[in-house]
């Protein structure tokens, strides 16, 4: 009988199969004894949430503030003396409140103060014109009023994004009001946060992490928050700050919140700080 395979070939095949089997068996034992069979998954924790939501019960359009139709004209003086205090900007009406010489005036479009006529306004600044020149006055947020005035040639030119924080923290007694632009500034500039406030991690005996304040830069917006060096942040908006993820989750969502309640530990006593974001 003629053989299909040479005996030598069959021998090689047996050798190959046996070697492959041995290797497979070795890998199988290694996987069984030394290697894990399932993946390690990270379970996302819930981030900080607002404690309450603001509900407007009044009609959608708030009645416009009383307007003096009579144009106010005051001639002479410098644009630097005018401080923009408030802006009301609707589709059909633009009203601003300005301060000059210790007095406040309400102006509508076309009204003049010290010869500067109100042309238009956005939510952050107003445009005045005098003798074919236009001036942009930024809404008063800084104590240095000189920096708020920028002569402009085109009214529609948007101001370039400043690296300095805009907005202020207003102390309203028990409740502090934080300007939203300030929050937005720090929410997008982590390096700026690190320059102004130092946060150190504290490891507890239970393995939980706490976050303490190691320094606050004098004159920075953080100094006005009411927190001090040595304070330990316990929770923000009901969310316990006991892990990096919880802390970072709060930081990531901070630009979306409208109210902020923070529990801190100071001298072994807990206290609550409340803020409103406007």
């Amino acid at each position, binding site marked *: 009988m003629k053989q299909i395979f040479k005996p030598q070939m069959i021998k090689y095949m047996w050798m190959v199969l046996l070697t492959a089997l041995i*290797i497979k068996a070795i890998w199988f034992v290694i996987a069984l004894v030394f290697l894990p069979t399932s*993946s390690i998954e990270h379970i996302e924790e819930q981030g900080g949430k607002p404690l309450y939501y603001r509900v407007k019960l009044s009609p959608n359009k708030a009645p416009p503030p009383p307007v003096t139709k009579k144009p106010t004209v005051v001639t002479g003086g410098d644009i630097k003396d005018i401080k923009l205090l408030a802006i009301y900007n609707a589709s059909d009406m633009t009203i601003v409140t300005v301060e000059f010489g210790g007095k406040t005036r309400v102006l509508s479009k076309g009204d003049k103060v010290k010869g500067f006529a109100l042309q238009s306004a956005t939510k952050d600044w107003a445009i005045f014109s005098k003798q074919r020149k236009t001036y942009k006055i930024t809404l008063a947020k800084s104590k240095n009023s000189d920096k708020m005035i920028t002569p402009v040639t085109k009214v529609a030119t948007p101001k370039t994004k400043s690296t300095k924080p805009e907005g202020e923290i207003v102390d309203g007694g028990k409740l502090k009001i934080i300007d939203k632009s300030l929050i937005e500034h720090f929410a997008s500039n982590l390096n700026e946060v690190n320059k102004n406030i130092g946060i150190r991690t504290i490891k507890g005996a239970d393995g939980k992490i706490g976050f303490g304040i190691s320094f606050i830069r004098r004159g920075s917006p953080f100094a006005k928050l009411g927190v001090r060096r040595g304070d330990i942040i316990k929770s923000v908006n009901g969310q316990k700050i006991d892990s990096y993820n919880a802390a*970072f989750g709060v*930081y*990531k969502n901070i630009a979306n919140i409208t109210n902020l309640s923070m529990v801190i530990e100071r001298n072994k006593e807990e206290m609550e700080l409340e803020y409103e974001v406007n």
Partner: protein
Amino acid sequence: MQMVKNIVIIIVVVWFGLVAFMPKKALYYRLEEELAKQDIKLNEKLIDESLFSLRIEDVNVYVKGINIASIREINLFTLLFYSHLSIDEVNLDSSLGMLAKDIGRSDIFHSISSPTNLVVDVNSSIAKVDGLVDLAQRKVRLDIENSPNIKMIRPMLKKDEKGWYYETNF
């Protein structure tokens, strides 16, 4: 001659068996375990094991519980004497303030001809990066292509006759 033939066949079969039967998925789980000890966790949607490669899709990278990056695909191709790891579309979390937010594709090569070195090739939103990781000397050198975008990272870089480069030890 017969002896040589037998040895060659055994070497080829052993090599093929080692690569093809390697429990790549389980080895990846072991890597995850080791990374978890450093507080680094990887969440992936798909792990696909094949004869010579392992493909992982939609990976989220968590460091200390913080989602710092997402990776569209990681592909490891290995023949043992030559390995290629490609990482596609890395998006770093913008709130971390990192300079390069998007890294298009990164390639890491290892060859038995230079067993202590890894060759790195990265295409980031800032610049193209070519580099070498010396495993023996525990040194990394990344040569960064000169572009206007590297202005921001220049304080971290050094310069020599080849141009700007980043150097660190691990």
